[in-house]
């Protein structure tokens, strides 16, 4: 089973080619006559020299050494690894979408503008916000954009004393990282015994310095922040704004809207909630939505409609500017748009219902075998603790690695930070009862192994192409590229 795989640079022969291009029509022209010698490359880059089939076999073999949603269950908490509909991959490849240049005149790209405009309206309806920008390329990029908007808004208000952003101790790491990129000081607020933001602790850290509160709801424990309206009031009372991290929006569509909870700025992750593939780490898309009073600060341009013509509005003097070139990851927006067409209002609500149903089912069936630190109704995900197994010398990491032997991608582990030996499970709505039951059986089996035969768990995985990798050495003596002389 175990085997290494040669690098693309180990394959091929000098002079072998994998490309075909039309004949050079200007073979009598010399680039040396056009470009000063100092500017020309002296040594060729060591790119591969392989045939087309060699290239295809290489990347096909690499793909077989990888697990995706189509390969098997992927309950990676906080990432919403739902099924990625194939029709979306087809429609995004329509020539009208792929073969348009961002600088073509508006009259030539009315279909693209209509799609962006329509998507804005759909996302606004789902979330209760007023306007959306599609420019941010990912969730974290959306956070950065949202915080820039908050900063610009406060600056216009003359509220220069507002320099602090409050973030719960259960928050995603991107929240504090984004806040500090915008020059805000990060203030942490503790969670209470119920796993929710502690209202008294919040009151203590809120002050006239508070620029905003970043919140995920349901939070990273999968629990709905029941006191959300009170929290919004506390922050709004001192002139701060509420930022909604939409990573967990899959739990509440058609049930509750951030805009109605008091949030002023939100981002959504189209690659989580709206079914676009994660691509092995991207491209994602992180549209940012705001309430009316913040629309003027959105990145420019916004798409507007006049009669039946769509156009880009650049006349936004208070805009924070651009956070990415042009209109964001447009192709990802196309796929998410097709996804929403497939579901309609009823389907969108059903998505959240089934996501929550599946998570609660797994939680109930597993809590006997693993510790459940917060035993109450959860939303689309829940967090177990491997504490009990840890006492028996089997760490959560071991449990995760053992799951690999069953062709299951493990849950998110060691996050959120406030749960010891955390295992964050998010099944999503697209999995069958059979898959859920299979996962339950596997988790129970691993819990038993941890007691009866811990070694099999500690030494897992047993069936993967490589065994556990030495990450410490990789970080201490980084080898980040191949070199020809080696």
């Amino acid at each position: 089973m175990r085997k290494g795989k040669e690098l693309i640079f180990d394959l091929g022969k000098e002079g072998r080619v994998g490309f075909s291009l039309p004949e050079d029509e200007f073979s009598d022209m010399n680039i040396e006559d056009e470009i000063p010698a100092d500017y020309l490359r002296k040594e060729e880059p060591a790119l591969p020299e392989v045939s087309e089939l060699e290239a295809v076999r290489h990347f096909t073999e690499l793909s077989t050494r990888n697990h995706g949603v189509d390969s098997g269950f992927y309950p990676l908490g906080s990432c919403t690894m739902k099924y990625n509909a194939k029709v979306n991959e087809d429609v995004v490849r329509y020539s009208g979408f792929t073969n348009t240049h961002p600088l073509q005149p508006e009259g030539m790209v009315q279909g693209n503008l209509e799609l962006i405009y329509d998507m804005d309206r759909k996302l606004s309806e789902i979330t209760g916000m007023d306007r959306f920008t599609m420019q941010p390329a990912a969730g974290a990029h959306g956070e950065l954009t949202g915080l820039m908007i908050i900063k610009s808004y406060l600056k216009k208000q003359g509220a220069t004393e507002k320099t602090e952003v409050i973030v719960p101790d259960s928050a995603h790491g991107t929240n504090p990282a984004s806040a500090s990129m915008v020059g805000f000081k990060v203030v942490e607020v503790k969670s209470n015994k119920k796993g929710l933001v502690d209202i008294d602790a919040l009151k203590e850290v809120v002050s006239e310095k508070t620029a905003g509160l970043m919140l995920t709801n349901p939070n990273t424990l999968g629990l709905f922040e029941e006191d959300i309206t009170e929290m919004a009031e506390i922050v709004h009372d001192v002139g701060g704004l509420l930022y909604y991290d939409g990573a967990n929006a899959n739990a509440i569509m058609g049930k509750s809207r951030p805009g109605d909870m008091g949030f002023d700025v939100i981002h959504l992750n189209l690659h989580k909630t709206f079914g676009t593939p994660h691509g092995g780490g991207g491209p994602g898309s992180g549209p940012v939505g705001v309430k009316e009073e913040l629309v003027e600060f959105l990145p420019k341009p916004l798409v507007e409609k006049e009669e039946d013509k769509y156009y880009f509005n650049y006349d936004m003097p208070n805009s924070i500017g651009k956070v990415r070139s042009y209109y964001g990851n447009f192709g990802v927006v196309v796929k998410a748009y097709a996804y929403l067409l497939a579901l309609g209002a009823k389907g969108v609500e059903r998505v959240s219902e089934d996501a929550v149903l599946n998570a609660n089912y797994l939680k109930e069936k597993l809590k006997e075998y693993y510790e459940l630190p917060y035993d109450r109704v959860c939303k689309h995900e829940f967090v177990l603790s491997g504490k009990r197994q840890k006492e028996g010398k089997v760490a959560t990491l071991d449990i995760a690695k053992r799951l690999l032997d069953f062709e299951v991608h493990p849950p998110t582990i060691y996050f959120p930070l406030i749960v010891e030996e955390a295992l964050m499970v998010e099944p999503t709505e697209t999995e069958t009862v059979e898959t859920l039951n299979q996962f339950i059986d596997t988790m129970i089996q691993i819990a038993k192994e941890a007691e009866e035969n811990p070694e099999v768990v500690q030494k897992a995985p047993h069936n993967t192409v490589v065994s556990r990798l030495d990450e410490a050495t990789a970080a201490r003596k980084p080898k980040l590229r191949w070199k020809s002389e080696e």
Partner: protein
Amino acid sequence: MFPYLPHTKEEREELLAGIGIDSIDELFTDIPDEVKLERELDLGQPLSELEIKRRMEELSGKNQDLSEYTSFLGAGFYDHYIPSVVDHILLRSEFYTAYTPYQPEISQGYLQAIFEYQTMICELTGLDVANASMYDGASATAEAALMSTAVKRRRKEIVVSTTVSPEIREVLVTYCSAADLVLKEVDFNQGVTDHDKLKEVITEETASVIVQNPNFFGQLEDLAQLADLAHDVDALFVVVADPISLAILEAPGNLGADIVVGEGQGLGNPQSFGGPHFGFFATTKRNMRRIPGRVVGETVDDEGNRGFVLTLQTREQHIRRERATSNICSNQALNALAATVYLTLMGKKGLKEVAKQSLKKAHYAAERIAKLDGYELAFDGPFFKEFAIKTEASVSEINQELLEDKIVGGYDLGNDYSQLSNTMLLAVTEKRTKEEVDKLAKRLEGIK
């Protein structure tokens, strides 16, 4: 009814029973009444797959796409040929339905592909370390500016040439303003960065000097000299590069660049109305631990087999939180994979051929058009695959007329540079033919 939602009515009841409750509503009792949505969303009826395709065909059909035109529009995004193999590999669902390779044992395929990508970017840029990708060229440039202030602690000033793409500079302005950095611009002379003005602008406070090569006008900058000027004040030298050009132009890393970034679209990614593409980011070994984003490293498993892992993670947001080198989490992995497949197929010879043919065709076009009455080259310096041409008629008028002949003309530089009104930026890639260039020239001749 919903092919993505598998549960039957009976199964839902079975699951509810398993939880020990009677209705779905009981799972939502934690949402307070005052924030509960008591109506159906206004999102319309669900559509069948056939109807989805019809609607999307309708939208796509409302665009006039470049497959029906001959395009000379570039300005940062280019019509380079994409071999068929690229998309076939991208459609391997083990790649596109995966997420960030957090579990290396079942992600060796992607991790190795990223390692190969990092190697190729290092080879092209002449630098030691590349990350796994950024959102686009513009945000990669902004992250380079932020990184330079982390390397040159307490320096709060970024200097950028106005020959850097206006789109990139706009993103740079946004990031710098949010991070309370001072951004200074340096004007150009004869289509390239004005060295004397640069000398006036840089100070001991300058964290980095950012230039683009080939620059926004297609002109080649004297990188070695610019690097010296930046290094004279101990600032980092950042180069925004066109990756295709690096097949024939000297690697910026060999000319003094400390960071090389750029837009990777031209490497196997369609123009796609501006995204998704990817930005590449490379730097020197010395600044390795300051690099933003994911990085893959080689290591071994328990049994000594070669394997790959995400590494240097203590720089990243999920570990370091507010002290991370950047907030980036999701990147543009699949677009970087497209580039890896593209660079593999094109290889040493093919990439050079693409660069050479683009350069030659652009030079033929420039010469041909400059000979026409009412047209002259805006700048005399050496250029790669784009050039600026001064026109008598306005650029928008010319473009309007060209469209009638199914030609998409160049970008109007007057939009961004007041001194360059009636100046058109034309891009010529290897996909254009002599015949198409002749047709363009002939058509231009008739417009005065």
